[in-house]
Structures are given as structure tokens and as C-alpha cells.
């Protein structure tokens, strides 16, 4: 089960990072669905940590870069846009309220 929990944590972290990257790439396309996916993934990671304390910040740090690469690739595929990010900040992934900045759905002029 713990291996399964590790895989589940990786999966939730990837979904979490992917939606944050999508917001950073295309903030004007941000939807409530993306925001709820972020909140849901955070809750699932918290729950897994509650029942399996070894999957803590140390574990997340170990898988961080690997999961980020996968999340970035998925975000680029889903948005059709290139992402220049090298990594994501811990606070952005686990603490920031992404629902607070809504640029009114308009695509910025290039």
C-alpha cells in the first residue's frame, strides 16, 4: 500500500503542478475547474501524509524535479504553448490561493 501511496502522491502532485503551470502559461484561460483540481490535489496529498507520515516534505522534495518535468510536459501539451519555467516554488504549489487573481478572461495582446 505504501508503494501505492507513493505513486498516488506523485500522481496528485503532478496534477497539482500541471494546473499551476497551466495558469502561469495561460492565466486568461483559468477556470474554476482548474482551481478545484488544485484544491482537490492538495487535500489528497494531505490525506495520504496523514495516514503515511513517511511521505512527508522530505519525500516530496526528492520527487519534486521529476514530477515537475512530467507536469510541465503535460501542461505544454494541453495548452499548446511552451513553458520557460525551471521549477515551481513550494509556496506556490501548496499555499498560494490561485483563485484570487482572475484577469477577467481576456487574452493579453502580444
Amino acid at each position, binding site marked *: *500500500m*505504501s*508503494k501505492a501511496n507513493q505513486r498516488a502522491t506523485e500522481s496528485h502532485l503532478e496534477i497539482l503542478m500541471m494546473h499551476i503551470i497551466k495558469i502561469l502559461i495561460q492565466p486568461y484561460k483559468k477556470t*474554476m475547474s482548474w*482551481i*478545484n483540481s488544485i*484544491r*482537490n490535489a492538495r*487535500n*489528497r496529498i494531505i*490525506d*495520504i501524509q*496523514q*495516514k*503515511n507520515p*513517511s511521505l512527508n516534505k522530505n519525500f516530496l522534495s526528492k520527487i519534486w524535479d521529476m514530477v515537475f518535468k512530467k507536469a510541465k510536459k503535460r501542461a505544454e501539451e494541453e495548452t499548446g504553448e511552451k513553458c520557460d519555467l525551471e521549477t515551481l516554488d513550494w509556496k506556490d504549489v501548496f499555499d498560494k*490561493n490561485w*483563485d*484570487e487573481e*482572475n484577469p477577467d478572461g481576456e487574452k493579453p495582446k502580444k
Partner: protein
Amino acid sequence: MKTDWEDLITVSDFLVMLEIKKYLDAGNYAEAKKGMDILVDFEIKTEQYDLLAMLEQLMYEVLEAKIFPQKRTVKWWIRVRDWRDKIEIHRSDNPYLEDDFVQSIWDEAYQRAVEYVEGGLRFFKRTAVIPNLEWEEVFTKEYKFRYPPKNFNHPKSTRDHVKS
């Protein structure tokens, strides 16, 4: 030699089972029981957190429609029925998840559901008073739709569907 059960469960529950079997085969029932206690506790926690995850989603759906009655669409009602069915099936598969346990996680699930709703309010730059939820509203109440399609029947639960 004794097994560090706490450590082993962090690796794999299957390895814990194999280790228990080893002790049983050797007649060391005391040590096997320690492993079994760890395993059972871990599995129960897993099912409890799964229920919490389902309840927070169900409460979010009910809260949204309670605050914004215009969101009571057919799709919304089907989502509510799906969550109710999943919870019912999960609880019937794990009978120790009794009403008392649901009551014990009620506030935490509600608080999480409120956070989803508050996120939506901030996103759409709206304000609303977030109401409390009653057991009946979450688990049994049949809601009226804003725009029920002609000849619409309330969808059956998936369990009823399986039975028929």
C-alpha cells in the same frame, strides 16, 4: 529477531502480509498479531480518508446549489447522486464506517467544502453567506431543478441500475 512493523508498512502492505505469514508458519503468533494490528490499522485509515474525500466533494456540490439554486441542473443532480452512491457503496464495503464515524469527520469535510466554495466566490468576485449543512440535505433530500426537462425522471442510483 523482531520485525520493525512501523517501518515495513511504509514500504509495502504486501510485505507486511508475507512477514505475518512467516511468523504464523513459525508459530510465533504474538509477533504475527503485532503485524496484523499494524496492517488492519493502516487499511482502516485508508478507507476512512477515502470516505472523507468523497464527503467533501458531495458537500461542495450541495453547498453550491444551496447558495446558488440556479446551479441545480440535471448534471448537478447526477453528480450528487453519483457521490451519494459512491459513499453508500464504500460504507457497505467497509461496515465499520458507521454514522458515528461520518459525524466525526463531518466538520472537517464541511470546512474543506467551504474552502472550495470560497475559492469560487473569490474567482467570480462574488459574496455569499455560506450556510450550514444538515445530514438529510447531504444524503437523502431530493432537490427540485431550476429547469427540469420535459418528461424528466430523477436518475436512478447506479446500484438500482445494477440490480435491474
